[in-house]
């Protein structure tokens, strides 16, 4: 081996890499981004989860329990007056869980009985529900033990009875299945389309297409619709596979889910076309897709609960169409919701779709 040759090779490689801003960006930004984001989203800790509190006892003991829950910092407590309010908040996503302290809680505790508090979670968010339940049980057990020490007559502490909405067995498979649609449609659809225009441009056919009477909209639809058709078929096959092999069928309308998913595909295909139209090579388009997929995995709620992320990051997650699609997907699959329940999310998704198709049109039609 010649050190001189090796040095020559190393110098060239270093120069070439460092002079390409895109490569430098990837080399520096992606590891940092991954580290920071994983740090935030992979934690099993519960931060600021909005927990409804229905204090039916309003005794010193119940206030002590509520004070202990607040003191953990894990929960942002939201006082409510009824169970209906709890259910509504869980459905529309304002609440991550609830705790119900029954009337007579303090008296039972003082008389040595073991009172039961009811913890309620939206188990459609199975991971979050699991984490939150652990926290609540820990706090309740500690409070119960302290109160029992103060009152030697009381023997039993406090019991926690857990109720879950929408996914009573806290099964992870439906949660993951409904999220997987979001991941596959977001990542694969973008990846497939990301190379189409750039490949055509490199082959010379895109330039030729530009001098035909075909309009940019026609060219865009000519690319989106056939690919959209294939993915629409994919969605149906995935739904069948999830149902037949994993036993997970949508609780809501399968047709509604299929239509929403097919429309979402047009959004992600547009994103792929934007990457393609703004890349000089197929490799660059693929790199952009991979970078795009990192936030999808980390921030869209596919695997990690958004409600467990810091507030500012939760706002960031709202900027990803995948976040809204996955939310809709889980709402249909796990909670059986329909268009009337989901219209705000559907509107947001439609707005993203319109925006991305418009940007794709502009980038494809741009005269450089």
């Amino acid at each position, binding site marked *: 081996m010649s050190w001189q040759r090796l040095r020559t090779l190393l110098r060239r490689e270093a120069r070439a890499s460092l002079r390409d801003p895109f490569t430098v960006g990837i080399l520096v930004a992606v590891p940092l981004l991954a580290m920071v984001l994983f740090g935030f989203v992979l934690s099993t800790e519960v931060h600021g989860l909005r927990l409804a509190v229905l204090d039916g006892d309003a005794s010193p003991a119940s206030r002590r329990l509520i004070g202990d829950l607040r003191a953990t910092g894990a929960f942002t407590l939201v006082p409510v007056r009824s169970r209906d309010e709890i259910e509504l908040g869980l459905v529309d996503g304002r609440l991550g869980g609830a705790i119900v302290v029954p009337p007579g809680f303090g008296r039972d505790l003082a008389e040595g009985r073991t009172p039961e508090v009811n913890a309620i979670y939206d188990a459609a968010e199975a991971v979050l529900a699991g984490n939150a339940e652990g926290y609540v049980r820990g706090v309740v057990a500690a409070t119960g033990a302290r109160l029992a020490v103060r009152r030697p007559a009381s023997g039993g502490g406090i019991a926690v009875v857990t109720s879950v909405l929408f996914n009573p067995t806290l099964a992870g498979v439906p949660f993951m299945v409904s999220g997987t649609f979001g991941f596959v449609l977001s990542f694969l659809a973008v990846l497939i389309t990301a190379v189409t225009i750039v490949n055509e441009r490199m*082959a010379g056919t895109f330039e030729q297409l530009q001098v*035909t*009477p075909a309009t940019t909209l026609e060219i865009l639809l000519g690319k989106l619709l056939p690919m959209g058709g294939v993915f629409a078929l994919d969605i149906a096959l995935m739904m069948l596979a999830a149902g037949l092999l994993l036993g997970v069928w949508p609780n809501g309308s399968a047709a509604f889910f299929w239509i929403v998913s097919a429309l979402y595909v047009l959004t992600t295909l547009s994103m792929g076309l934007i990457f393609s139209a703004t890349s000089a090579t197929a490799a660059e388009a693929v790199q952009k897709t991979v970078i795009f997929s990192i936030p999808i995995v980390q921030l869209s709620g596919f695997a990690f609960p958004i409600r467990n992320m810091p507030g500012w990051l939760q706002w960031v997650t709202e900027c990803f169409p995948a976040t809204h699609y996955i939310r809709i997907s889980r709402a249909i699959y796990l909670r059986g919701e329909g268009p009337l329940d989901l219209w705000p999310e559907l509107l947001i998704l439609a707005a993203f779709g319109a925006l991305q198709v418009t940007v794709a049109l502009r980038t494809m039609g741009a005269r450089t």
Partner: protein
Amino acid sequence: MSEPIIRTRGLSKRFGDFTAVDALDLAVEPGTIFAFLGGNGSGKSTTIRMLIGILEPTAGEIRVDGIDVVHTPRRVRDHIGYMGQKVSLYQGLSLRENVEFYAGLFGLAGAALERRWGALRERFDLAAAEGRRPEDLPAAIRQRAGLALSMLHEPRVLFLDEPTAGVDVRSRSLFWDVIQEEAAGGTTVFVTTHFVEEADSCDWVAFIDAGKLIADAPPEALRERFSDGYRVTVRGGDPRAAAAALTAAGLAVESAPDAVRGTAPGLPPGALAELERLRARQPDAHVEVQQPAMTDVFRRVLTDAPRPA
């Protein structure tokens, strides 16, 4: 002189600090073959991309077949045919499927397509290649097919960006035959080429260097201005009669022991007729005419032509 079918005024394109095309004024007469010559990176392809409306100029005006290409680039597409440096055939589709695809975009189908494609297929000798995919075809056939496709919708103006690059001599000759036939039929052809000698097949030649137009004239006019001129050598026969004929043809004559030689900046038809008469009167005389090579003209243009400010 008729109204130019292609006209640019002050056409410029800058990429950041780099000026690719600088205040270009061009005028192309209808039904002519206009050669646009220049070295690598001189601005040829940038100019052609602006003329066909896929690259937005930084400044200047473009009119093609009466259409304002700068402001309404899409409108020009029905009027033009284009063949880029890369042959634009879709891999995975047969040549016939490629033809149907592009024809469909121009609204050409059915009997009209069969008639037009049938003629082009014959003219470009593509019948055997019709069912094959581009990736299985030799480069020369792909290039011929690309040219045929650019003419499928019978455009009024044909833009060809180095159409003969990488093709064999036979195909190059076929290309130029076809181009001249198209021009004879009224189509205007705007062509860039690296083969400077091909300028002789054109009616007008423009040279571009570093984005600036440095010469713009018919090939013969460029020869007269940027070469040492034609050289005519007469060997055998009567040297005095030969010298008289060359003088009558307008050449500056010099005698050598073995031959009579004459030079002139150009050879107008009258001069050629005089040489023909000499040949007829003196069958023993061998008359050799040396035309200045266009490559030498190009070289001289690059060194001698005044640069616009």
